[in-house]
């Protein structure tokens, strides 16, 4: 172990302010949903949005997002059958928002999941075993992180061609190193904890330690990181679509809606404003939720 000189265990008697939670600091008991407003409010809004994007089109009266009739173009909002009106090509904006939102969130979720599983695992392996594996991984990560994420994503999307799957692949190049770095740092910290040594002395083999001890203790941190990153990924996807490299038209995504809409910004500002507004609210909710969860999970 090429470690620093280990600090001798301090001879600390448990003090009132640490052991007995009954004296000293205010206890935050998460009892009652009223105490958890910081989680409940963004959570509820997100749940509602998810319902809108994923469930409502299946059961409610939502028109088709594509194949609009040019004769229906530029209908005003709040008209019959078109909550937000239509775009220059005749597509119903409301349904494009819903389907576009679904795409955006699907992509962001997939990207973050890939990041968590792939990046999280590699980071944990590197952090736990160290040595050559760690060295190689760190250098690879350094290279990946050094490049601006957008540039890589654009390059990949450009070479592969626009499609949902390719977009996910391209954006994963961004999320995997990010998760790996977090996971490695968390694992390094965890590895020095006494209960890991105790597990080894109990005879538990390394793979099992990684799965049953390391993973459960770093996953909360990774999940909150993932939530906080959802907004970034959605916006990145939007940027890709903005450059025409994300979801291929005529399928909607918030990004390409904004791209198309900016061409007629002065005439029909709602074509940009409406998707932007939804983008803003969704990203804000993910961030608030991620922040609130991080606050409570890092206390334990």
């Amino acid at each position, binding site marked *: 172990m090429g470690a620093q000189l280990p600090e001798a265990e*301090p*001879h*600390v*008697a*448990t*003090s*009132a*302010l*640490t*052991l*007995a939670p*009954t*004296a*000293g*600091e*205010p*206890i*935050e*008991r998460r*009892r009652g949903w009223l*105490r958890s407003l910081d989680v409940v409010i963004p959570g509820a809004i997100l749940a509602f949005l998810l319902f809108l994007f994923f469930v409502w089109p299946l059961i409610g009266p939502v028109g088709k997002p594509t194949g609009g009739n040019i004769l229906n173009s530029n209908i005003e909002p709040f008209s019959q059958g078109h909550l937000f009106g239509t775009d220059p090509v005749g597509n119903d904006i409301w349904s494009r928002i819903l389907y576009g939102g679904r795409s955006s969130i699907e992509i962001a979720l997939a990207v973050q999941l890939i990041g968590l599983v792939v990046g999280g695992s590699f980071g944990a392996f590197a952090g736990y075993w160290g040595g050559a594996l760690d060295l190689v991984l760190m250098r690879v990560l350094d290279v990946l992180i050094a490049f601006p994420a957008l540039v890589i994503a654009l390059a990949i999307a450009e070479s592969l061609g626009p499609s949902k799957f390719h977009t996910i692949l391209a954006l994963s190049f961004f999320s995997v190193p990010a998760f790996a770095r977090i996971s490695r740092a968390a694992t390094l910290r965890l590895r020095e904890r006494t209960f890991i040594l105790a597990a080894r002395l109990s005879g538990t083999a390394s793979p099992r330690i990684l799965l049953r001890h390391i993973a459960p203790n770093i996953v909360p941190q990774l999940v909150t990181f993932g939530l906080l990153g959802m907004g970034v990924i959605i916006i990145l996807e939007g940027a890709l679509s903005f450059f025409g490299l994300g979801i291929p038209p005529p399928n909607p995504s918030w990004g390409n809606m904004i791209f198309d809409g900016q061409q007629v910004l002065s005439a029909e500002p709602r074509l940009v404003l409406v998707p932007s507004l939804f983008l803003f609210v969704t990203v804000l909710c993910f961030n608030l939720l991620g922040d609130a969860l991080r606050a409570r999970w890092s206390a334990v």
Partner: protein
Amino acid sequence: MSGAANGDLLQLGDLRVDFRTAGGPVRAVDRLSYSISAGRTLALIGESGSGKTVSSRAVMGLLPPNAKVSGSIRFEGEELVGLSDKQMRRLRGAGIAMVFQDPSRSLNPTMRVGAQVAEAVRSHADLDRAAARTRAVELLKLVRLPLPEQRYHEYPHQLSGGMRQRVVIAIALASSPKLLIADEATTALDVTTQAQIMELLRDLQRQLGMALIMISHDLGLAASFADEVVVMYAGRAVEQAPTHELFARVRMPYTKALLEAIPRLERPPHARLPVVPGRPPDLAALPPGCPFEPRCPNRQDLCRESDPPFAEGEPGHRWACWFPCNGGGP
């Protein structure tokens, strides 16, 4: 030490500290009264949750915002309860200083130790840099830090635990306090270093005429260095007496249990210790009556129903117990 207010440097009268928590109000300190005069040492003894640290933080005005302090804390006759932060800060260091348990957390790791002492000096006296530096070196000499001029330029991590604690004491002394509160100041140190630091504190006390309140869980330490001992349990004082008297004629069964539980050199190997079952009570859910009752070997029905008063049973010796031990040491 009770009664006469003249000559008392610090006097606590029925001090109460309540915390507003998510689970309801918690009384961390309940009707604590004691006093200390210049040049004396008082030991505040208790385990986790006893309220000893919270009460001292109340004296220093260092409690979190959800704490409510009531009762009286008089320092040199001036009432401290109800003072604003600014007024407390003026008083802090100018009259009262505090030394905490973990020296590594009391020192700024990115600043040289000498600079930290000098900073403390300048916050209490209007000196220029050179004069502050000289005074800082003087203080480091005073706390018997070896090679003070050299150590002045070092960072905390370059010093051992004992040396760091000396620096912390030097910082505390920078304001020439009349009262020094040492909150488990030696708990994190080795036993040989602990002895050195306690001796240093005692000598400083004599030299500077300071009063010293030492907070600890270690009754042995109190026996060696304190003039008077106050034992706390569940936020209240349960026994108080001059040291000699307390150990010779312990009354409160809790104090007796503490004394018996301390490892002793004189015991034969594999001796079984007399133990008290259970653990300290949850301050948020204190039963009526004596808080020690569930664990007390002397308990009777009365103890569960009624809270014993903290009264002076013998001259200078107060305790809160309906059925105290009948004197005689452990």
